[in-house]
């Protein structure tokens, strides 16, 4: 050891260490915090007068394809239930089901396939039977006015036509594979995308002539692509069904149930239909 450690340098050193640790630690702490915080209300409830019903938060884990519909339904639900804040956790159905199984705080789970819902049901995480309330169909997305005159799945294999589908590993790709089987056609896509929005983008940017996407995606593209119906879209295993269920251990099962009733009720049906879903 040296006899006289220069105190100023040492102090400056300590400050530096503290700063570095803080730099390293802060983002980590922020990451850790976001998982548990379901009470840091990001609510749009304006003034929350104490005279009205006590503030409640409803957490809904929902498939990414439900984003637009659920957000608009969330607004309506909050307006109809003063004091209630609806928070959404949108993501891949598989991921969401896994999160619920591992105890992530959620009151309602709404996935994009019965298989993913079954993951949560099998783990005893859903109260009662999940309810199937909506379906979504594949369509062939083509450029507006369909310049390559694509009217069937087989047309995607025509010379001079480039097609894009989802990879079979993801739900939209599994549906596409089932549709090919039903039509007895083997598509030769130039790319298998990671998700359905990737397929849509390829068609929107004119790099592919046709792509298999959902009716709701064609609707959301608002005129940038046109949708072509094909008969196999209604075959078994091709149509996507949307189940919803109340999560066991929900802090407020009653509120959760009223969300389920709302989504499956007339207002929910109207919003879903408008987005291109078929409702039951």
């Amino acid at each position, binding site marked *: 050891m040296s006899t006289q450690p220069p105190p100023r340098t040492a102090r400056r050193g300590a400050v530096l260490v503290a700063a*570095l640790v803080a730099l*390293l630690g802060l983002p980590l702490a922020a990451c850790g915090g976001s998982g548990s915080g379901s009470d840091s209300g990001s609510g749009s409830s304006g003034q929350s007068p104490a005279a009205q019903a006590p503030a409640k938060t409803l957490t809904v884990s929902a498939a990414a394809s439900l984003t637009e519909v659920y957000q608009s339904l969330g607004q309506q639900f909050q307006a109809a239930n003063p004091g209630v804040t609806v928070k959404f956790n949108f993501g891949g159905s598989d991921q969401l089901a896994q999160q619920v199984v591992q105890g992530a705080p959620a009151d309602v789970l709404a996935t994009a396939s019965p298989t993913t819902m079954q993951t949560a049901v099998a783990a005893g995480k859903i109260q009662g039977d999940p309810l199937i309330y909506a379906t979504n169909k594949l369509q062939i997305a083509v450029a507006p006015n369909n310049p390559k005159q694509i009217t069937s799945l087989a047309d995607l294999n025509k010379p001079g036509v480039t097609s894009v589908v989802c990879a079979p590993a993801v739900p939209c790709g599994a549906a596409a594979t089932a549709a090919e089987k039903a039509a007895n056609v083997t598509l030769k*896509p130039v790319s298998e995308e990671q998700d359905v929005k990737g397929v849509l983008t390829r068609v929107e*940017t004119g*790099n592919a002539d046709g792509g298999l996407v959902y009716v709701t995606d064609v609707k959301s593209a608002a005129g940038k692509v046109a949708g072509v119906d094909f008969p196999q879209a209604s075959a078994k295993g091709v149509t996507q069904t949307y189940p919803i269920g109340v999560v066991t251990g929900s802090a407020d099962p009653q509120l959760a149930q009223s969300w389920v009733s709302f989504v499956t009720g007339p207002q929910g049906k109207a919003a879903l239909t408008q987005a291109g879903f078929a409702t039951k």
Partner: protein
Amino acid sequence: MSGVPRFLWVPAVLAWLLVAVPVVGLVVRVDLSNFVSLVTSDAALAALWLSLKTGLATMVCCLVLGGPLAVVLARSHLPGLPFIRSVVLLPLVLPPVVGGLTLLFLLGRTGPVGAFLYDRFDITVPFSTTAVVLAQTFVAMPFLVVSLEGSLRTAGERYEAVAATLGASPVTTLWRVTIPVVLPGLLSGSVLAFARALGEFGATITFAGSLQGTTRTLPLLIYLQSQDDIDGAVAMSLVLVVVAILVIVVSRTRDVR
């Protein structure tokens, strides 16, 4: 004691752990009983082969194009050289997805160059293995250029000047003097470019798409498998870690030599 100030040790160890621990976590997570079948599946072998093939092609492209560029940057006295250099560095700073988009909007079927190629010659660049190499070259080029330009500047122009006074032509000087002197930098730059190409993801998936055997390189396969077959993704990740370590070992021994 060494001359390293003690207060540096804590962040230094943290930094090292931040890199090392996740890799250990990956190794621990590997499903050893199925490892061989997971990494020798058709999809895995196709991706590995494609990655090696496109990585090597990228390295050659970087050498053939980036090598001369580095010489121009280090030796010429063009006006606006700093500007030219900063453009070359752009891919280092840009998110690769942005690189992929720029390539797509240039060479995609509706892009100015892509439309011309498609209409005149019926050539579609995206979705091809060529597109993978283009995307990888875009992101890997600066690694070779920076490394080689650094070597050229460090080596200086003295030997070249001497060669010139002895009557050697600029071409002879380049082959007999400049290149031998900067060979270590050239090699480590090439290895770095190869390594960057192997890891390329964002530009490739945006510009080239993802299709087994044509455009689905190892990183793309790992990302795809992480959606439904996490064991496969982890096994392939381990393969990539091993390849990365090999690359580092190779480039290190070059440095020492």
